[in-house]
């Protein structure tokens, strides 16, 4: 087995060869490819038209959505509160207690009874100050 000192022996070359005129040809091909890279990209009129159509469609859709949303908001939002209803009834004497009673069903009356607990003192005071009490008692 003989020793081999790679570092101190004459340099061994890779042995690779390049075809004749390769680099000149390479330059020409590369220049052509780079010219394509540098050339500004042409955007066809049709593809631009498509973009415009899409943009218009998107705007229309947005406008319609806004309108639909606003209508829905108007119809659904304003809820009358209790005070407003009370004020309305107080200043419209044409609406009588009987009118209101006819609009209430049994469930409403029961709910009303549950929500309004009346103190016995209040009932007593009411009976003492109401003139038509006797009429009701006789009845």
């Amino acid at each position: 087995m003989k020793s081999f000192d790679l570092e101190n022996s004459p340099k061994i070359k890779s042995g690779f060869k390049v075809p004749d005129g390769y680099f000149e040809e390479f330059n020409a091909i590369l220049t052509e490819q780079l010219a394509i890279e540098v050339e500004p990209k042409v955007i066809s009129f049709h593809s631009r038209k498509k973009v415009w159509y899409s943009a218009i469609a998107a705007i229309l859709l947005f406008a319609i959505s806004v309108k639909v949303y606003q209508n829905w908001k108007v119809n659904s939002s304003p809820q009358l509160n209790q005070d407003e209803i009370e004020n309305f009834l107080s200043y419209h004497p044409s609406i009588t207690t009987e009118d209101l009673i006819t609009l209430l069903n049994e469930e409403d009356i029961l709910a009303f009874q549950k929500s309004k607990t009346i103190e016995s003192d209040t009932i007593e005071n009411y009976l003492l100050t109401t003139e038509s009490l006797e009429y009701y008692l006789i009845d």
Partner: protein
Amino acid sequence: MENEKVFIETLLNPKTQQAAFKQLVFQFQKPLYNHIRNIVLNHDDANDVLQNTFIKVFRNLPKFKGESKLFSWIYRIATNEALTFLQQKTKHHQSSSEEYLQKQTEKLQADVYFEGDEIQFKLQQAIAQLPEKQKLVFKMKYFEEIKYEDLSEILDTSVGALKASYHHAVKKIEEYLKKD
């Protein structure tokens, strides 16, 4: 260094870019071809990788910040392109990178663009046995004579690690060459 700064400015200026890039290609095409050919072994493959390398360099010029030497940056792109090319080939042939390069090395004797004698062919066979990193370091140091400091920038590896890789590679190659 000052010259390189000026040259980079001409490369980035749209008015002077084309002429400057031609100069860059002229300056780098031969050493880069040798670098790539040493990695991929076959001329046609080296040609494809070299073209891709220059196109990538051209496209990425605006991103070059001058943090490393232009030479190191270009070599890094070339090395990555060559290694990616090999990965794609090995995937296609369903083999490891070592197996693929060993097969390519055996084909060298029939390659019209390889004019190596017996010892040159044997050296190529010895290199083909090395692990990937040692192979790369050995080729760049022994054939291309790139300084360790530049190698360190190109391969993003410390000089110490590169020296160790090269030393191990040389020992393995010497062992292989003294077999007969």
